[in-house]
C-alpha cells in the first residue's frame, strides 16, 4: 500500500477544529473582560507572563496558536474558493505564508519570555 502523509495533516486539521471549538470562545471572553476591565486582578501582566514563562504554559500557548492558525488558514483557502475566487494557488500561498509568519512570530515571542 502506498504511504501517504495525508492522515497526519488531516489529524492536525481535526485537532485545530476541536481546539478552536473548545477554546476560542473562552479566549474571546477573556479579551472582552480585559477590555471592560472587569476584575482588575484578572489576567494581569504578571500572571500571564508567569504562565508563558512556564515550559508547559509555553507548550500550551504554542499548541493552541499553531493548530488554530493552520486550521483557519486552510479553511480560509476553501472559503475564498467558495466565494467564487478561482485562484487557488495564489490564495494558498498567501494564507499559508501568513500562517507560517504567525508560527515564526509565536516561536520568537515565546523564546523571549523567561
Amino acid at each position, binding site marked *: 500500500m502506498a504511504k501517504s502523509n495525508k492522515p497526519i495533516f488531516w489529524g492536525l486539521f481535526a485537532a485545530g*477544529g*476541536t481546539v*478552536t*471549538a*473548545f*477554546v*476560542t*470562545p*473562552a*479566549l*474571546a*471572553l*477573556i*479579551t*472582552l473582560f*480585559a*477590555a*471592560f*476591565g472587569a*476584575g482588575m*486582578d*484578572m*489576567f*494581569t*501582566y504578571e*500572571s*500571564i*507572563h508567569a*504562565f*508563558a514563562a512556564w515550559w508547559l504554559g509555553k507548550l500550551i*500557548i504554542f499548541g493552541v*496558536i499553531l493548530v*488554530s*492558525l493552520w*486550521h*483557519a*488558514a486552510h*479553511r*480560509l483557502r*476553501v*472559503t475564498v474558493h*467558495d*466565494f*467564487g475566487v*478561482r485562484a487557488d494557488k495564489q490564495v494558498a500561498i498567501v*494564507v499559508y505564508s*501568513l500562517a507560517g509568519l*504567525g508560527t515564526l*512570530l*509565536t516561536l*520568537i*515571542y*515565546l523564546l*523571549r*519570555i523567561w
Partner: protein
Amino acid sequence: MNSKPYVREVSKTTWFLSHPRYKRYMAREVTCIFIFAYTFLLIWGLGALANGPEAFSGFVESLRSPLGVLFSLAVLVVTVYHSLSWFIVTPQAMPIQRGEEFVPGNIIVNAHYGAWAVVSLIILFWGM
C-alpha cells in the same frame, strides 16, 4: 446523442443563497475569517507580553478601544456559533458503537457541551 448538453447555470459568487442549507454551510465557513484574525490578535498580545509591561498595557488599551471591544464581541458571537455547529455534527463525524447499538447522538452532543463548559471555566478561572 445530444450534441448540446444541458448546462445548469450556477453563480460562482452567490450560489449559496439558493438554499438554507448552503447558507448555514457558508455562515459556518465564514467563522474561520474571525478565528484567523483572532489568532493574530493573540500573537500580537504575546509580542506585547515579550516586550514588557508597558507594551502589554498598550495592547490592553487597544482592546479597550471601541474597535477592540467590537472585535472581541464579534469573535465571541461567531466562535460560539462555530463551536455549536461543530459539536452538533459530532454524532455523524464520530459515531460510537457499543455492541450492536450506536450511542444516541444527543448523549455525544451533550457530553461535548459539558466538556466545553468545563474547559471554558478552567480557562476563565486560571487567570483569577
